[in-house]
Structures are given as structure tokens and as C-alpha cells.
């Protein structure tokens, strides 16, 4: 069934319907031959209703709204310009500021597309004008754009947290352990913080290193415009409010004060008020934000519906038992299983994006891995990092598509591909780092929550 689904997906019809349609065909075929129990399909409306009333997932449209608002009201753009101002005169300074702003945008929106497109539109022309090599410029933008997946608050982590939490309970019960620690979205948020920041640091180190080894690829730059005093004022004006917003949203979740949904609601309204204060909140902006939010939300939830139908049919055929058996018989034990899962997810990342992998693959493999004794936060972050990398992998990384969409025509696609390769290596390095020091992910949650 997996193989057929992959084939159907390759044809290019929307993923949600490809998943559900193929599963449906398999179910009907099975029913015709009397090997599939129709009762499994009968559970579809119950599953849909479960999706409709899942309170964790309500954070998704709210975070999307917040991201769209920051983007459409140009708050994100101003943030970048002001940040570049801070690093003028430093070799690779513009690249560093792109990485930092990417991180902030990532933190606040969590939408890869939004970050890459925004950064592509506002920083790519500037970088090229300052003599940055196209590869370095596009690579930096693509990579920092994907930080939204890993730096909380992140929609990917919200979705992954939902899946991991039930996988973890399942795993413990399979072992007969009944005094469980539970893993929540908040745990993943905290766990992702340090690995996310290390990634930013590695990106910056790379950019600065290139600037010193090959100055022509990343020259230093002066001021972008005149009048020192006004710039000073603008700097604080542009930097402070979004920073406060981000810290407030993130902080209230991490401190356990608010639920992710509540924090997302406050963040969405906060972004709107910020846009209003900047006099950027016309009826048109509001309308565009609403419509964009609607389309992205529908896209996400329709995939969830497709994945729900797929998983019902998969279960109806006893597929989950099969996978469990497969992993339990795997040589090399937990390490072998983990490596196989990571490679599989990495490869699937070439054709699927994080939502499909989170909802189709993770529920199947995570309980088995967790049962073998892996830490759920660590596993969650490993998967999140892996999925983040898949946004970057040529030729199908979504980040690359988005940047291609907004890059000037003289930039060749091959330059973009070449540009992201060092960043993919950094990602893989980070995965290895995290494998040897799981504390990077688990340390902070342990410290905060005991």
C-alpha cells in the first residue's frame, strides 16, 4: 500500500486526496475479496469528529494567523532591515543578520514558506547588491527559513507533539509500565530550544568562516542609508516590539502559564495590534491575512483527514502489527532501528513534507522506538530536525521551491542547490551531535520540569 501511495503521490495530485483515495481503493478491493472489515472505514466520521474537536490543533490556525500578520504588515521586513544595520562593517555581517532575523521570524511564525518568501523578497536583493555570492545568499535564506520548524513555537512541533504524546503512552503500556511520564507539546518546545539555537550558531559560524576564507563571497558592508540618528530610533522601533511579542508568546508556553492554543491566540492578536500601531492594518491587509490563513489551515487539516483515512485502512489490514514485528526483529537493536527510521524519514522527506510524515509515518514507528526505551523528547527533536532537513534537500525541498518562486531569474536553480549543500551538512552534523549528546534536547526540559 505504501508503494502504491508513493506512486500515486508522484503523479502530483494533492497529497490529501492521494492518500485517502488510494487507501479507499485498497479497502474496497479488500472488501470485494472478503479480506477487509468494512467496520474500519465506518470509523471515518468518528475520526473526523475527533479532529474537529481536538483542542491542541486549534493552535495551528492561530499561529498561522500570527505569521501571516507579521509578514503582510511588513513588520518582518522592517525587522530584517534594522538587524542588518546592527552588523554593518562586519565581514559576513549581512549574512549573520539574515540568520538572526530568520531565527526571529522562525520563532514568531513557524511557517517555512512565510519565512523563506519574506526573507527571499527583502534580503536576497540586498545581499546580491552587496556582492554576496548567489549560492551563499540563497543557501543562507533557505536554511534559516526552515528554522521555523525547530525553533518554538512551531506548528510542526505542535503536530508532532500531539502524535508523540499518544505514541509515548502507547509504548509504555505495551511494556506494562504504568507510572508514565507524559510528553507534551510544551516539552518538545523546551527540548527544541537549545538544538535550534545551536543550529543558528552553526549557520553563523559557517557564514563568517566563508567571509574570512573567501572574502569575495561575503564582503563587509556599510550603512544601508543615511542619517545616523533616525536609524538609531528606527532600530529600537523595529526590533523591540516584535521581540517582546515573541518572548511573551514563547515564555508563557514554556513557563506553563498558558496552553499553546492560548498563547497562539494572544500572539495573533498581539501581531494584529502591532500592525495597527505601525499603521499597517488596513482592511486589505486584514482581508489578505484572513484568506491566506484560511487556505494554509485547510491545506494542513485536509492532510490530517487524508492521513486519518489512510491509517484506518492500514490498521484494518493489520499493518501496524506488521511494522511492530519488523522493527522488533531488526538486527542491531535500538540503535539499528533508530538509524533505519532516521534514514527512512530522511528519504521520505525527499517526496513528502513534514505534515504527512508526522501523521502517517511517526504514529507507526514512534511507539516501537519508544518501547525500546528511547527518550520521547529526544526522539521528537531528532525527528523534527530530520524533517527540517527535508525542506532543504534538492530537488524537492519545499524551501527551495519557495525561494525559487521569489528569486530573480538570473539566479540559477543549480546555484540554489549548491548553496544549500553546506547547510544540509550542518543539519546532519547537528543530528550526529544530538545523537551523542541527547542532553542537548533533554537537559532543559529535565532542568525546568524536574
Amino acid at each position, binding site marked *: 500500500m505504501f508503494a502504491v501511495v508513493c506512486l500515486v503521490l508522484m503523479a502530483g495530485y494533492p497529497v490529501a486526496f492521494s492518500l485517502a483515495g488510494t487507501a479507499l481503493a485498497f479497502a474496497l478491493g479488500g472488501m470485494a475479496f472478503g479480506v477487509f*472489515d468494512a*467496520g*474500519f472505514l*465506518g*470509523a471515518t*466520521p*468518528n*475520526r473526523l*469528529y*475527533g479532529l474537529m474537536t481536538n*483542542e491542541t490543533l486549534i493552535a495551528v490556525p492561530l499561529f498561522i494567523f500570527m505569521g501571516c500578520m507579521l509578514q503582510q504588515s511588513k513588520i518582518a521586513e522592517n525587522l530584517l532591515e534594522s538587524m542588518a544595520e546592527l552588523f554593518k562593517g562586519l565581514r559576513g555581517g549581512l549574512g549573520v543578520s539574515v540568520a538572526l532575523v530568520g531565527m526571529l521570524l522562525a520563532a514568531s511564525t513557524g511557517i517555512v514558506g512565510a519565512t523563506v518568501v519574506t526573507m527571499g523578497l527583502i534580503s536576497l536583493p540586498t545581499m546580491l547588491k552587496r556582492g554576496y555570492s548567489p549560492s551563499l545568499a540563497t543557501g543562507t535564506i533557505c536554511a534559516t527559513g526552515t528554522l521555523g520548524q525547530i525553533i518554538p513555537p512551531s506548528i510542526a512541533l505542535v503536530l508532532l507533539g500531539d502524535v508523540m*504524546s*499518544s505514541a509515548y*503512552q*502507547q509504548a509504555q*503500556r*505495551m511494556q*506494562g509500565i*504504568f*507510572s*508514565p*511520564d*507524559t510528553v*507534551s*507539546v*510544551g516539552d518538545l518546545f523546551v527540548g527544541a530550544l537549545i538544538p535550534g539555537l545551536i543550529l543558528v550558531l552553526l549557520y553563523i559560524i559557517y557564514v563568517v568562516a566563508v567571509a574570512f576564507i573567501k572574502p569575495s563571497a561575503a564582503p563587509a558592508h556599510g550603512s544601508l542609508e543615511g542619517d545616523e540618528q533616525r536609524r538609531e530610533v528606527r532600530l529600537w522601533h523595529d526590533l523591540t516590539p516584535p521581540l517582546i511579542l515573541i518572548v511573551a508568546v514563547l515564555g508563557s508556553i514554556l513557563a*506553563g*502559564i*498558558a*496552553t*499553546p492554543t492560548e498563547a497562539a491566540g494572544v500572539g495573533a492578536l498581539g501581531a494584529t495590534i502591532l500592525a495597527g500601531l505601525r499603521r499597517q492594518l488596513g482592511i486589505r491587509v486584514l482581508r489578505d491575512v484572513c484568506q491566506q490563513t484560511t487556505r494554509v489551515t485547510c491545506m494542513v487539516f485536509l492532510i490530517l483527514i487524508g492521513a486519518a483515512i489512510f491509517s*484506518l485502512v492500514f*490498521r484494518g489490514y493489520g499493518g501496524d502489527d506488521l511494522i511492530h514485528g519488523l522493527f522488533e526483529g531488526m538486527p542491531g537493536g535500538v540503535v539499528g532501528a533508530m538509524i533505519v527510521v532516521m534514514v527512512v524519514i530522511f528519504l521520505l522527506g525527499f517526496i513528502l513534507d513534514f505534515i504527512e510524515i508526522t501523521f502517517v509515518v511517526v504514529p507507526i514507528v514512534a511507539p516501537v522506538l519508544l518501547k525500546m526505551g528511547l527518550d520521547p523528547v529526544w526522539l521528537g527533536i531528532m525527528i523534527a530536525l530530520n524533517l527540517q532537513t527535508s525542506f532543504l534537500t534538492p530537488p524537492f525541498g519545499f524551501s527551495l521551491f519557495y525561494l525559487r518562486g521569489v528569486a530573480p531569474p538570473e539566479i540559477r536553480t543549480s546555484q540554489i542547490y549548491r548553496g544549500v549543500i553546506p547547510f544540509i551538512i550542518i543539519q546532519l552534523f547537528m543530528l550526529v551531535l544530538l545523537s551523542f549528546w541527547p542532553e542537548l534536547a533533554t537537559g532543559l526540559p529535565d532542568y525546568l520540569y524536574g
Partner: protein
Amino acid sequence: GCSQEQESASTETDANNQANSAEQAAAPAEEKQTYKWKMVTTWPKNFPGLGTGPERLADNVREMTDGQIDITVYGAGDLVPALEVFSAVSQGTAEMGHGAGYYWKGKIPAAQFFSTVPFGLTAQEYNGWIFHGGGLELYREAYEPFGVIPWPGGNTGVQMGGWFNKEINSVEDLKGLKMRIPGIGGDVLEKAGGTPVNMPGGELFTALQTGTIDATEWVGPYNDLAFGLHQIADYYYYPGWHEPGTALEMIVNADAYNKLPKHLQAILDVAIREMNADMLAEFTARNNEALRELVEEKNVELRRFPDDVINRLREMSDETVKQLAEQDEMAGKAYESYKSFRDKVVPYTEISEQTYVEIREPEGEAAPAQ
């Protein structure tokens, strides 16, 4: 594949088969039909007591029917979400379901009377009402329009009052409290100014940890320990005034049940009644061990609700129950039957169980930790 298993079955089972099925032996070589059923539950798979009970029932039934009824048990969310269990059985998606009646109060308000009533019957009294006091007939009548046949499917006994992160010194302290508490107890909490939430067990830990709720009750020490609620709450209050003997519920799709031959229906019926009794026995055996672990090893702070809180809650419960009985015809009927049984049984309980429990230990020695 059941004919092969039959051949290899032990002589003991063979003997039983022969004794039990004289008529089948007379009917020439008709192949026994097998019934492959799905049971959806509101609990995580294999959850202590609540989830292992259904699992054990499935094993028992399989053995007693020599594989003719083969039930696969699904945990909450495996096939349908926890609170969708009733719908799934009603529409025939699953043939059986295990949960608790008060989870479907949005569909059948009367179902709450067949789960538990604040300050109502204990487990022992409840089983008297259901099986020998007219309760089961009403229970079935309430579920009949949905094509569902209910049984009491286990009982937790008196539950605990719940996990709180602040002290409850007066009813005022319940104001503004967002607490997971199902059934009529939830309505009472609302009367006291709190906000009740009806949430399946599997979501409790995360909800309390992330602040979606401020407090929660679950079942008793055995089950509460299993969810690790002690890790995220300061006080463990008793007694469970709101759930003095919660009956869990086994439901079977009526069409599926009616398709079974008489002898299989009888086996299913007896197996469910056995499960009903056995689960209470399991809770009785495990709760005290779990409480000791919670208090001595996990350092949980055990608190008793102050008397005036209990007194106020009792008054509010009476009002709430009466209101519920007025709102819905079937609930009214259930209430009448429940109340008249309660009025009859309580005086005798007072001079039997209650007096005995009071005299069993020398005064003062059996007092629970304060």
C-alpha cells in the same frame, strides 16, 4: 481457521464441547460460524483495571466459546477517539464498546444514573439495584432507541476526590476552578462556581501539566498512580463524594447481539457479569497498595475535604439530581427508581455495613492519615 484449533484442543475442552452441544452433534456436520468482533474502549489499551478488564473478557469469551466469538480490543484513539465509543457501537462500526455511561450524557442524560450519582449508592448497593431492583430494565430501555444493549461492566468502588494544586478549605475555593470531573458531579461543581470538563483519561496528564485544566479527578490510587498525576499536583483529596461507586459500562450493538445463537448470547452475558464483579475485586485489592506507594514513596499530601465543604456539596447535589430528573423524561424515570431503592437500602446499610465498619477496629486506630 477454527476447525483446526478444535482438533488440537485439549481433551478437557473436547469433553465440554460434547456435553454442551448435544444438539449440534445431532445436526450433521454444520460448520460453526465464528464471530470476529471489534471492541472499542475509552481507555488506553491495557490500562490497569479499566483496560485490562475488557482484554480479559475477550480472552474468557474466546476460551468459553472455543474461538467462536473472537473479540479484538482497541484502546482509545486506535480506531475511534475515546468519547466516540458510543457512536461507533450504535452505528455498528464496532460490535462492542467499554466505557462509562456519563461520557455520553450529551446523547442520553439518563445514562448518568447508571454510572454513578454524587452521594448516591455504593458499588454493592448499585449492583443490588441493577440486578435485583429494576435498574437493568430501565438501563436497557434508555439505550434501546440507539440500538445498543448495556451492561454494568465493572465498578471502581468509592473513588478519590481528585488532584488539586491549591487547598480546598471552603466551597469558595472551588470558584473559578477548571476541573476535569464527569457526570452529575460536574454539574454540582458548576453549581459551586467551578468549570467542569469532561475529558477522557488519556488526556488528563497533559491537560493538567499545560494548564488546560486546574484540577482533575480520575479514579482512585491504583489508576491515578498509573497516570502519574502525583508528578504535577500537590494535594490528593478524599473522599470521592461525586463518584461513590462508579459503574463502568459494556455496550453491545443490538443487531450484532441478536445475530448470535442463544448459547453464545448466554456466554457473553455471564462473562460480562463476571467482569463486572471481578473489576471491583481488582480495585479493592490494588487501591490500598497504590495509596501506600503514593503517600510513602511519592510523598503525596493526602487531604480530606472539610466537613462543611462536603455538606454544601451534598445540598447542591440533591438540587442538581432533581433538576436533571425534571429535564428529561427517561432521566426522571431512572431517578424515581434509583431514589426509591436508595431510600430502602440506606437504612439497612447503616445497621449492617456501616455499623460493622465502625466497630471493626478499636476507635481511632483506623483513622486515615490527615
